[in-house]
């Protein structure tokens, strides 16, 4: 497990985050954006742990990753509950 391997893995995950960010910007309804943000948060957990390996401070970064997972879960749950009661505005044609 070398430095360059972790760097390459982090960069590929960041590319996937960039792809998901397209759906956040261009998503037709609010609920598409919520899904994309949840996906990006899950990817970020992996990136945080890999950053810990890059800086050789794994013990600290793992705690940060755990906290991030907690906040990501609660945020997704709160947003979905809010829009379940409020209703989602959507156009008929899904594209």
């Amino acid at each position, binding site marked *: *497990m070398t430095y360059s391997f972790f760097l390459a893995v982090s960069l590929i995950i960041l590319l996937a985050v960039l792809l*998901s960010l397209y759906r956040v910007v261009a998503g037709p309804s609010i609920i598409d954006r919520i899904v994309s943000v*949840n996906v990006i948060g899950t*990817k970020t957990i992996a990136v945080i742990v*890999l950053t810990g390996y890059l800086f050789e401070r794994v013990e600290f970064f793992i705690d940060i990753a755990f906290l991030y997972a907690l906040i990501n*879960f609660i945020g997704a749950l709160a947003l979905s509950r809010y829009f379940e009661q409020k209703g*989602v505005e*959507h156009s008929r044609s899904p594209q």
Partner: protein
Amino acid sequence: MTIVAAFLICSGVFFLFMGAVGLIRFPDFYTRMHAAGKCDTLGSLLILTGLACAEGFHLSSLKLMVIALFIFFTSPTATHAIARAAHRSRVPFWTEEDNK
């Protein structure tokens, strides 16, 4: 052990990337959710397990497995809650007519 860890991490990255591609390419909300929810859970689980394998017996690897267990429970729960919100507010399904 290093080879096993590298294999797990590479397959996890593959799943995360394919989930992102599916999130862009699929036509409606429910199919996007299908790609995003499952690929994301499995990819994160594989990456965290691979890092724990690379670490060996250590406190950090135990914490990594705890994070993996947490994601294993919470990510499907969040996906289910979002899909339920969409279904309750009648987000339309993709049909064959939308393709034309």
